[in-house]
């Protein structure tokens, strides 16, 4: 098996706060292959964004403790110094943020911002960088790029701004693109445009993508593999077909049942009782146990991810999973 582009091994991120230790990410393990789209899905506070920030070295709080291993093309990048990280960040690994208005600075033209990144990582002249910026804007579907390149972020609509951010991310032909809720701030029709664009660019550039979202629908349309996170821990990892068709973890069942569907009308939505656990007070055993209707005695011991291709951190055996899942679906 070829070496994966990115492999994350037992990543743990903890913040020491006055109220106690917050384990934002606790034992995340997954890998991203060449040209693969991996989706990380979870609700607010599940640790999906923090895990990505930590592996890019973007968490700078003095009270954060990051442990584990993150290998990019076989090289350990966790704990690299600023200079070394700088040469990877933006060049080999680029990031798209949720809110395009905060990802762009309002005081420079969008062209300047794209050129800055190109020149920071390459040897292009100012002139070449400008030409490349216009080319990139055209590629992400911005009409009249030669004129738009001079304009400032406030002169663009939300969808257009996100296109600019994508153009920036692509400027150095990254091998890995991390997209953190790239369409959450956008309307449905704009979201469709951006997702279509990302799919198209992924084909032309051949980058791998880590897509972070809370939207099961978006993830199921984009991702090759899906990682479901709960309370900082991976609950389930598997291929799209496996996770969507035969989900293994009760939390995934709840997540999928809670989404109102377009095609069929059900009288009631499946709900997950209670609220998400407080990160200060994650249970000893399975983090989901207090909200799980299939809770057993053994759940007070923390389950590890079990299975080979399709893994789930749950103590239920496969026969139980099948019967509970079918019951949940018909309800």
């Amino acid at each position: 098996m070829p070496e994966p582009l990115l492999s994350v091994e037992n990543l743990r991120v903890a913040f020491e706060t006055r109220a106690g230790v917050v384990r934002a990410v606790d034992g995340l393990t997954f890998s991203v292959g060449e040209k693969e789209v991996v989706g990380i899905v979870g609700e607010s506070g599940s640790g999906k964004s923090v895990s990505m920030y930590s592996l890019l070295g973007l968490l700078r709080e003095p009270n954060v403790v990051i442990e584990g291993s993150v290998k990019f093309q076989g090289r350990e990048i966790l704990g690299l110094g600023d200079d070394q990280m700088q040469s990877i960040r933006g060049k080999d690994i680029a990031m798209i943020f949720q809110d395009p208005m905060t990802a762009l600075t309002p005081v420079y033209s969008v062209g300047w911002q794209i050129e800055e990144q190109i020149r920071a990582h390459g040897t292009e002249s100012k002139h070449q960088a400008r030409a490349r910026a216009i080319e990139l804007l055209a590629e992400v579907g911005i009409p009249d790029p030669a004129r738009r390149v001079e304009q400032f972020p406030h002169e663009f609509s939300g969808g257009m701004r996100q296109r600019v951010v994508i153009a920036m991310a692509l400027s150095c032909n990254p091998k890995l693109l991390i997209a953190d809720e790239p369409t959450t701030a956008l309307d449905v029709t704009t979201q469709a445009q951006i997702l279509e664009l990302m799919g198209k660019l992924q084909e032309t550039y051949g980058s791998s993508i880590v897509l972070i979202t809370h939207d099961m629908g978006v993830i199921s349309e984009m991702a090759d593999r899906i990682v479901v996170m709960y309370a900082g821990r991976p609950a389930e990892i598997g291929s799209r077909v496996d996770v969507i068709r035969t989900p293994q973890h009760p939390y995934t069942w709840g997540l999928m049942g809670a989404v109102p569907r377009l095609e069929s009308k059900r009288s009631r939505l499946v709900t997950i009782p209670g609220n998400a656990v407080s990160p200060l007070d994650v249970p000893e055993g399975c983090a989901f146990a207090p909200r799980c209707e299939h809770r057993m005695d053994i759940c007070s011991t923390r389950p590890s991810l079990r299975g080979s291709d399709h893994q789930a951190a749950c103590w239920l055996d496969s026969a139980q999973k099948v019967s509970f899942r079918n019951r949940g679906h018909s309800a």
Partner: protein
Amino acid sequence: MSDIILSATNIVKSYSVKSKKIGKREQVQAVSGVSIDVHRGETLGIVGESGCGKSTLARCLVQLLAATSGSVSFNGTIITGLSRKKLRKHRREMQLIFQDPYASLNPRKRVGDIVAEPLRIHGYGNNEKINARVRELFALVGLDVNGLQRYPHEFSGGQRQRIGIARALALNPQLIVADEPVSALDVSIQAQVLNLLKDLQEKLKLTYIFISHDLGVVRHVSTRVGVMYLGELVELGDADSLYDQPLHPYTEALLSVAPELDDGTQSTRNRIVLSGDVPDPSQKPTGCAFHPRCPYATEKCASDKPAFVAVSPSRSVACHYPRT
């Protein structure tokens, strides 16, 4: 009592904004000429993208905003242009639930007092009676009565939305306008709140106007659905038939791109990805407002504005060439 609880005719709401020309002002229509009836006991869903005027319309319907023109009648009485005093007795029958459960509750008040406020304002009774009613409301929306003395920040988003719902129900209204009530919540919490709203509707015989940008949520809760684009109602119909067979090209496109759970096996979905953005309402296109982005537009669409007409007893659409 008639079947129609609220009826709006030709509602227009325009705002005066600074024009690009220095010293000039221009009129921007947030809602332009919407007529709609709300039937008793139904849930009327209103969908559309940001800036389409769905919230403005809802606020005009319940007189939270005064419409520029047009009239609204509630239970047969015209309520547009009534004095504040005369409006008050109608207001208790129409309540709102807001989107952001963090912004819609006063952080300095105890939640018990927040829910009691409408009761006090409308003279529900003495303190004892009010307290009993607040407790009843807390139980009704599934909150622990021990939390009455707490402040909003001590509650999670879903619980805060329940507090907002309790406040809206305090005066036993007939009509509830819910403006994006679940958009700020995580899916698992969203499902709890949607189920609660449904239970309350059955129990209390409520009528809902439910505003959301989320097509799945609207389908789930609504009996009828109205689709808005640039301040206009472009399609209205029974939820089931509208979702199964959209008539307006905008509805068709919206439904085709809404993200759906997909295991990669059904590739039959025909996505219609619209080009361009929603135009600036101050520069509304001529003719049909949707024509610059419409894949089926003709010259007629650029010059003639399509009328909003009924194509069957339960369906209406504003399009020269409705889809079939």
